[in-house]
């Protein structure tokens, strides 16, 4: 097994575009396009922003 240790990945041709070989071992998908950029788990019983949330 070969292991790559790094803190940052960057595309060579385009910094924000890296191809990743897919599960079928032939086609590729794009790393940046496929990564989840944000996620949140919130308590729906709490008022998050009272000025902008209308409680129904």
């Amino acid at each position: 097994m070969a292991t790559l240790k790094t803190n940052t990945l960057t595309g060579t041709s385009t910094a924000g575009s890296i191809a990743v070989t897919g599960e079928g071992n032939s086609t590729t998908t794009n790393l940046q396009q496929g990564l989840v950029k944000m996620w949140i788990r919130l308590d729906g019983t709490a008022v998050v922003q009272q000025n902008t949330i209308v409680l129904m």
Partner: protein
Amino acid sequence: MSNLLVQNIKHTNGTTSMVVNSSGHVATDTIKGNTTAGSISVVGEGGSNTTNLQQGLTKAWHNFDGEGTVATRDSYNVSGLTDNGTGDYRSGITTNFGNDDYSCQVCASSQDGHVGSIEREAYNTTSQMSSYIMTLGVGVDDANIVCIEGIGDLA
């Protein structure tokens, strides 16, 4: 610890594999598994367990206007959009899934009120994702914003 000072790592045939830029970042255009091309482990946030890079990537996503003349706003790995009637859409896939058992999420927003959205399993294939939109009190309905994502094995 010994240091190897290098800027370019190339195969013996001259093909560049990766570049170490002046910030120390590893720059490469393609990542491929060594043992299995389509499988790369990534150490998780806890620093000990691993997750799989390929399995964790969204393979296709599509944001489109489902009202009137349907139109794509933005997408990845989507070849086109088909309007199959009220609240009924198909998103074509450019690079197909490896099977039709992928996980498909649909969400929608409309000024008509509360919108429910589902995938239609029977119409999900390796080359298309389907979405079906319903508005409370209305039933099947077109929506202004429809978003659909597919996560699963790539062909």
